[in-house]
């Protein structure tokens, strides 16, 4: 069951195509990563889901039916460019934003109390936003995003502006929201956070969805058949030059913890790992054997073909 489906979205701006036939299916209760370099069209897609702007063609379905503007009451959106009214008090501000999302005054007040209590920041309620530090403002912003208990949460670069402690706090909050039944879309350049919390991803590059699927499946599909092995220091595996009947090839030698190590590559993807181990055991005393799966960062760079701006 997909909670959100964006089908064949096309969005054309005057000079360039922001989205070209992009289809994204977000399963219910998953954390879905939306990746891509700057200017790829992620934010445009998010804005279309939020009814901030409309697609030239294609539809957005929520819960199996065509999305209508009032659906934004069930969406919590934390934009990349975010801010608050600086002169307003924290409590007033949260109340105002919650009321805009259709919460009644009493519900809103209850939720504000709940969330401020959760982050242990009740004493901020009467403070003006401009008196708070940037990290504090981000927390308020996060509360404003989730205060109406939306079914769908969209975070655009949520960790920018957070220190590691607060980023971790935020990550745990996001995971908890998922466990409570929310569906979460997560747009970021930060690949390590993607590996940690995303279930599925779509990688958008130059207005097109170039890579989609479950994160483990993607890593498996992109593996380069590289293995890290360690073996006793008195044995060696020969570094053959490539011959047609070789099972493996040594890419790199090294030493670690009193062992010889090497990174080897399977020459033929159809060779099973057992056959590879057997071939190596004939040469050396094997201690460890581990397949190297590519990181999302590598996959990203390989796919996009340009270095990622890590921030």
């Amino acid at each position, binding site marked *: 069951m997909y909670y959100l489906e964006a089908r064949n979205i096309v969005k054309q*701006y*005057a000079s360039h195509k922001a989205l070209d036939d992009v289809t994204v299916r977000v399963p219910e209760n998953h954390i879905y990563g939306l990746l891509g370099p700057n200017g790829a069209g992620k934010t445009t897609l998010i*804005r279309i889901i*939020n*009814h*901030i*702007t*409309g697609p*030239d063609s294609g539809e957005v379905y929520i819960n199996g039916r065509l999305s209508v*503007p009032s659906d*934004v*009451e069930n*969406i919590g*959106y934390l*934009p990349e*460019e*975010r*801010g*608050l*009214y*600086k*002169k*307003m008090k924290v409590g007033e501000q949260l109340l*105002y*934003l919650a009321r*805009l*999302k259709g919460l009644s005054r009493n519900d809103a007040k209850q939720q504000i109390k709940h969330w401020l209590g959760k982050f242990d920041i009740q004493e901020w309620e009467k403070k003006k936003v401009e008196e708070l530090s940037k990290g504090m403002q981000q927390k308020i*912003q996060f509360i*404003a995003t989730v205060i109406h208990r939306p079914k769908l949460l969209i975070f655009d670069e949520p960790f920018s502006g957070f220190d590691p402690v607060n980023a971790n706090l935020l990550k745990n909050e996001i995971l908890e929201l998922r466990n409570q039944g929310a569906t979460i879309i997560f747009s970021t350049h930060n690949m390590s956070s993607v590996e940690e919390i995303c279930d599925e991803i779509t990688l958008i590059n130059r207005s097109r969805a170039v890579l989609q699927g479950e994160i483990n499946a993607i890593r498996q599909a992109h593996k380069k058949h590289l293995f890290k092995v360690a073996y006793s220091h008195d044995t060696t595996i020969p570094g053959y030059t490539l011959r047609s009947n070789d099972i493996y090839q040594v890419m790199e030698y090294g030493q670690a913890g009193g062992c010889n190590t090497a990174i080897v590559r399977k020459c033929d993807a159809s060779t099973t790992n057992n056959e590879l181990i057997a071939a190596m055991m004939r040469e050396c005393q094997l201690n460890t054997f581990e397949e190297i799966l590519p990181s999302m960062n590598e996959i990203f760079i390989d796919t996009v073909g340009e270095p990622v701006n890590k921030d």
Partner: protein
Amino acid sequence: MSRVRKKSFLVMTLLTPILMVLLCCIPAFITLFDNGEMRYVTVVDQTGLYRDVFVNDDEYTYNYLNTETTAEQMRSDEEPYAYIVINDNLLNNPDAMTIYSHRQVTTGFESNVTNRMEDFLHDQKLASFDIPNLPQIIEESNVNISVNSIRFDKEGDTQTSAGLATAVGMISTFIIYMFLFMYGGMVMNSVMQEKTNRIVEVMVSSVKPFYLMLGKIISVGLVGLTQIGIWVILIVGLGLAASVALGIPMLSGNEAELLAQAQAMGEASTIDPDMLGMVQTLAGIDFTQILVSLILYFIGGYVLYASLFAAIGSAVDNEADTNQFMIPITIIILFAFYVGLFSAENPEGAMAWWCSMIPFTSPIVMMVRIPFGVALWELILSIVLLFASAVGMTWVAARIYRVGILLYGKKPSYKELFKWIKYKA
């Protein structure tokens, strides 16, 4: 929304009328406090001819000395404020009068002395011609006339005054001119603030950009009306209080009542005919029409310009960039203001007529023309045009706004703005 609650708004709203009334009262206060010190002036009249010229009054007391006084004597005696020394017949020798003083004398004192002496000499010279009944001749040769202008009207001819019509027109024009700029600018700043605060994307994920903009325009407009309302009440109230406190008689109440009163008194012929004329002239101006059109033109003009300002605010990133787009608007408003000024001279001229039809200038120019009498169809046509274009402008502005608020770090050109209008929602 958050605007009305700002302290500065409250303070300004309450203070401005107080300041205005205070400003009006300052001359009265000054005269109240100024007449403190009595100044002593010694007149050294060596001719003995001008004993009665200078008469003591509230400010100056004159002492006459017949004896010759040397400069040294005057210099050593610092008691008098000034010495007036006359050492020859002034009819023969106009330079024979000199003022000596230790401190620089005021121009007020100098002209006072000169005028008195000139009047005295003038009378003296006339008397020297020795014409019989001269005072009567002079009295009779002073002619005062007053011109009455009567406007032909269906309900009967009303007495009018070009000066008063101009004043009423000017005041209403100035009110509109001021508020267009003030509240238009307020809308622009508010939009720009939301954009630079980066809150706008949070907002538009809950509210459609069009409603966000409309809400802003309407709320600032209401703030404006509230402010005007408070001002009017406070100014009238404080003005009355001040006039009572200072003992200045002031015209108050509605003019019909006043007119009735005046006429009743006029019949009893105890009232000054000038006063009666003025009241009649006031009655000649249709205040209901002016007030209704003032409000209509304010609303129409405000919506028109405020949406324009909102579009500008959304298109730029910071205040400095607004200039590029502000200049044309400023020129239009200033142009309208000047046309308004000249329309007061020639309210039926082609320039005035066309500018009172063109929506961008009509709120300002038409307000000048109304007190002079404008055909109803012209008024309706102009207001309909204004409202139609206000709605149109809101629509165009909404399209620019929608794109502009989410676009950062780029200063758009006019060409780009035009492109935005054509984007699909």
